[in-house]
């Protein structure tokens, strides 16, 4: 590996990037560090501030690089950190015989540059890698001095936010009552404008998360058949009523605060003694990367616990600005790895962070959850009992198959239950699925439709995401 600190200093876009990179050089931030000397490549997965890891690859020959983070600094702090580790502790990298698929993808797309180093950016001479290392220590001293001031300010801001949200929820209540008075048929037809207006008011009054949720209602309704939309509108608005009432009862409740205003930081979750930690083998069921109306892109990775006797799911959820461009997937569907996850405190913990990721595990069958066909949505119902504001639930469906109705729409139905429950499937499906008997199916249920993630069948694991 051909890195020295001088090269990293030259490549860094500014001093701040170097300082940030220096904090990421700890081994604990990198569950995977690998190299292939034949291909002159190093790569790793950095557990950054998001729930999903960032994947970084660097060509040590020509210093080309790629990181999946949304940063607009090139190279970003993760790339610089990876180079930094390569320069200072090259033994941290495990030799790998083959390159992962995401590295191959990048190699296949990139154009090789002939220059061996990037030109110095303006102000490059002012960057200093030694100073970056010292930044840490001095910052720690400054933080200690500012803690009290910051906490006071935080308390004040929290109080102001709570008052503001309370007013926001009053407006929301009134808005809901208006929709009922004006008629849900009109609401469904004009949901885009109506939801946008109230969402904008909620953002002004710091109920940001709730605003984002309301902004998504139109697209959720439009994804359904027209005859399903009124019921879906009742569900969506009814859940908002319940959520607003619950928040008023317990505004400091972490789950409710997350759903109404803002989410706690990664550090807060890690430091929270109430946050459940689960160490197990997790399989990546699939990812959902969706552009939202508020200009953010939500990136969810759904995991299934392979050691649990009942289906236990985890959702790694990140948001980033749509302007940051398309983001590469953090995982490949079907990946299995051993990891310790911490769940955001909630009545039905689902959203999680990776605390520590250990080795990858070979794929195999899912555990036998011995699910009966009587009510494939029983788990969803149980979640609703304790957290009725939840919209989407991951479920494992019992043995079944996918069938078509006379309009060509797809339905999942339990095996041996031709007159029982049939669950509508969102979007179009691969026609081959119609010929496969599904031993178990993982999907997201939104109250009206299934969004298929993965399944087990006689043909092995099926990636349906």
């Amino acid at each position: 590996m051909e890195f020295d600190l001088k090269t990293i200093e030259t490549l860094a876009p500014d001093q701040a990037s170097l300082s940030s990179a220096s904090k990421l050089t700890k081994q604990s931030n990198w569950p995977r560090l690998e190299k292939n000397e034949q291909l002159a490549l190093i790569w790793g997965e950095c557990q950054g501030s998001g729930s999903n890891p960032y994947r970084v690859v660097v060509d040590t020959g020509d210093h080309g690089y790629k990181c999946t983070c949304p940063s607009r600094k090139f190279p970003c702090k993760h790339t610089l950190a990876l180079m930094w580790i390569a320069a200072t502790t090259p033994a941290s990298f495990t030799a790998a015989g083959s390159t992962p698929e995401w590295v191959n993808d990048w190699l296949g797309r990139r154009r090789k540059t002939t220059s061996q180093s990037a030109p110095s950016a303006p102000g490059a001479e002012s960057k200093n890698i030694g100073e970056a290392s010292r930044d840490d220590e001095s910052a720690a001293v400054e933080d200690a001095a500012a803690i009290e001031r910051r906490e006071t300010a935080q308390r004040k801001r929290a109080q102001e936010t709570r008052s503001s949200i309370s007013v926001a929820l009053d407006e929301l209540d009134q808005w809901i009552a208006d929709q009922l008075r004006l008629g849900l048929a009109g609401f469904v037809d004009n949901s885009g404008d109506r939801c946008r207006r109230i969402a904008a008011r909620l953002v002004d009054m710091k109920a940001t998360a709730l605003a984002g949720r309301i902004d998504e209602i139109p697209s959720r309704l439009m994804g359904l058949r027209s005859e399903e939309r009124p019921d879906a509108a009742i569900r969506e608005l009814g859940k908002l009523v319940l959520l607003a009432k619950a928040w008023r009862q317990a505004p400091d409740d972490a789950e409710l605060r997350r759903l109404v205003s803002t989410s706690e930081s990664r550090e807060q979750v890690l430091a929270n003694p109430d946050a459940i930690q689960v160490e197990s083998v997790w399989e990546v069921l699939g990812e959902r990367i969706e552009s939202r109306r508020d200009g953010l892109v939500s990136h969810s990775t759904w995991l299934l616990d392979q050691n649990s006797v009942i289906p236990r799911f985890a959702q790694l959820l990140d948001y980033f600005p749509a302007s940051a461009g398309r983001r590469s997937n953090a995982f490949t569907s079907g990946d299995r790895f051993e990891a310790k996850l911490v769940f955001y405190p909630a009545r039905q913990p689902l959203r999680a962070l990776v605390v520590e990721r250990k080795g990858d595990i070979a794929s195999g069958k899912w555990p036998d959850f011995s699910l009966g066909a009587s009510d494939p949505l029983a788990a969803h119902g149980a979640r609703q009992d304790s957290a009725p504001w939840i919209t989407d639930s991951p479920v494992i469906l019992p043995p079944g198959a996918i069938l078509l109705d006379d309009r060509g729409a797809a339905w999942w139905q339990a095996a041996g239950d031709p007159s029982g429950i049939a669950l509508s499937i969102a979007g179009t499906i691969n026609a081959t699925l119609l010929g496969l008997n599904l031993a178990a199916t993982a999907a997201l249920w939104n109250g009206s439709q299934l969004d298929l993630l993965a399944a087990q069948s006689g043909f092995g694991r099926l990636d349906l995401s």
Partner: protein
Amino acid sequence: MNEIEQTGLAAMRDCWITGGAAFDLAPAAWKTIAGNANPDERERRLLAIAAQAIEIALRPAAPKALKQRPPLPELALPILPERLRPLLRAALKHAADARFKTRVATLVASRGFVLHPLDWMPAASYREVPDVYAAWVDWQAGVDGEKQSRREQLTAQTWDDFYPAARRTALTDMRRTAPALARQLIEAKGSSEPAEVRSTLIELMGVGLSADDAPFLKSLFADRSGRVRELAGRLLARLGEHGNLSDGTPEDLTAELAAFISEGKSGFFRRRTTYAPLKLKSPSQESRRVDLFATCYLGDLAARFSVTESDFVGAWQFGFDDKADLFFIRMVSVSGGEAAVAHLADTLVAEGGKAVLLALHLMARLDSGRKRALIRQILKDTYDLHALIQVEGVEAGWLEWGDLTNGQTLPTLRSPVARNDEPLRRSVDQILETLGFLVTAATAEKLIGDVVAAGMAPAAPSLGLLRLNASLVGP
């Protein structure tokens, strides 16, 4: 939820859809929960209860007309191992169209595996798929899903139990092993099939074609389908049964074509007869000659000049008119006898250079050995490596490293890679993809090493099929 609540919920729902207060319509128990709050608050509370009732208490009922497809049949070969599927998907992603994707499936089948059905499924309409996929082709075609292909002997009794693809595969096999039996089946059952299916069945007669088939083929001149009559005429022509047998080649057309061909002599000591296309005066004459080549049969034309097919083919002077050469070869391909086709292919391959490329038009009629010889010659000459991408119907995974080093193939591939010449590299990408289908696993590995050493990115998408090939070993 009891019946009263269901009725109340339905009434409230209707009320909210049109707009208005639903409190009076609510079930009594729900009214109690909604309490004595102000009217707006009462409506919101009822809305919350209704939302949860819809979410939890109601379950979607199955539509009456749900239709289930029969299970996708398991194929005779095992599914490609999971660890190789990423390589496969990369190769499929890079394959430009159904033809190239089918090549990937053919390569994998040649190593004893089939693809996972979610990675690739043969289209019902695409016939050039490996035989092992016949059951899936039929599954795709069997929209009604009423019957299954049976793995039993095709006979007149079981004819209707076979879907078209499985029947085609069985008949092709039978034409190789018991051609008379297959002919009798086609004769007995073909007449009741629609014209399109009938012509497909007659095409199969081309496999293992022999003089024994002539009476049946002659009987097809009474068929009501022009396409079937034309096919029968060509097959008969391949058997040497020429002379105005069908309604497609009246003798005066052959005479007209012969008039566009000059007969000459060459050689100083040993004078021999030659045939060459006449230099024509107008595009309309050229167009007419092209039409005549497409209509007439080689046997008739050779007879017109009182020589055998092989003699006529051997005496043809290539290089006077490229277009005439091309259409002459096509005529040989569709109506020439086996000997004439083999003779022409051997002549062109022996000549080398540009002539070899003309032999590509005979591919469909060549035996495996001649196909391989043709490809080896293209590689040896390196006149136009790009022509390789046109090869059709050839076996996968047999080309050895020595075939690539027996000429300028490797330097020709390396040069644009090393110079980063973008347009030429695209051509190299396509050639590498074709070679990925043709070469052995060991050769694939060596070839990857060679082009990577020349400067190609190790994970370049164009190496996808080669990487898959190199990783594929039998089950």
